[in-house]
């Protein structure tokens, strides 16, 4: 028997609402708005209220998959990154760096967004950087 509430921050958008995860016997069972959180003051949108559902979803990806001959095969991070890097190199060599674009997100941190644009500009060599909120 193990029941607890774990404070966290909603990962859905950039607002950063405070939530409490309800954990019953080791399983994420519910989400409540954090009533004293300065951002959302006890309110949530419909996505926030249902966060525990995607964490427990059977469709959730838990490890990298690589598409090979039309099928997704499980792999590890090193392998997945190596394959992606090789493909990027091929594409840049063949079609030029502007054939690649990088989409950043409100769900990731400021620093991660910075790294993503740095990667686009300094590594790939393109200014094609955009944000998910503008899609």
């Amino acid at each position, binding site marked *: *028997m193990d029941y607890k509430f774990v404070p966290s921050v909603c990962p859905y958008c950039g607002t950063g609402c405070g939530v409490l995860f309800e954990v019953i016997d080791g399983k994420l069972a519910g989400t409540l708005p954090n009533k004293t959180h300065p951002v959302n003051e006890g*309110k*949530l949108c419909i996505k926030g209220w249902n966060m525990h559902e995607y964490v427990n979803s059977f469709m959730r990806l838990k490890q990298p998959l690589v598409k090979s001959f039309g099928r997704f095969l499980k792999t590890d991070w090193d392998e997945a990154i190596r394959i992606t890097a090789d493909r990027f190199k091929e594409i840049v060599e063949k079609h030029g760096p502007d054939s690649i674009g990088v989409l950043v997100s409100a769900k990731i941190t400021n620093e991660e967004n910075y790294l993503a644009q740095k990667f686009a500009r300094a590594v790939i060599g393109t200014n094609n950087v955009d944000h998910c909120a503008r899609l």
Partner: protein
Amino acid sequence: MQAQVEQWLKEGTVDLFIGYKKIDGHVMPHFFTKEKIDEVKDLVAGQAHYSLEKIATKVAAEHPDMKIGILLARNCNQQALNVLTIWNQLNSDNIKTIDAFGDACPSEQAEDIAPYKQQNGLSKSMVPEDAEAFDQEQRFSRWMYEFSKCMKCYGCRNICPVCFCKECSLEHKDLVGTGNLPPEIPVFHLVRAVHMAGRCIDCGLCEEACPSDIPLRLLYRKVNEIVKDVYDYETGTSPDQSPFSVLGEKVVLETTKL
């Protein structure tokens, strides 16, 4: 309070005590157990309100025989327990409570109302008579203005201690139209209002959770005023089943499984 909880846990009067603890500067619901008896000294009351009773129903659904202690911070918490017991969501034999009443009801606090809302809407600090001072047409348009802000987050239902249905009518496509925002109004809000007849204990949690500042409690207060006038039933304090459980003997409201 702490000494009592400690004693109950040590003696096995309760297997679990649901109260509040301050974590990272936030007062939040916390489960106190015998295994972590030291934590009981951090038990606090009030400052933030969650429906500990609703949390208890979830525990009871998983462990029907567990003896649960609950901290009651306000009078409405006791009423919520009564309603949940009447509707078979909690077994009163397994529930022990500690009263730490004393927190002011948020409805008694003053409210700043924006001029636009003053002109076109209804405020949370109103009582049914205030709203009835407007003529019917005005009242309807004011309610429609309030409802039109609804973003269908279901927060009002999710947070409500006495909303426990396995399948909620608000998500039933034949009852409430789908695919639009705001949801079908006023049907969405009226369906919920009708369900709160004989059930809503006026705790105000729905209103606190509503991101759109809709005076939901005012609506449910009116509904339960009618219940009192017509059926002489005081929701939350009457010990009998509500007049609306006319569902027939075969229908059993089961506890919600998580």
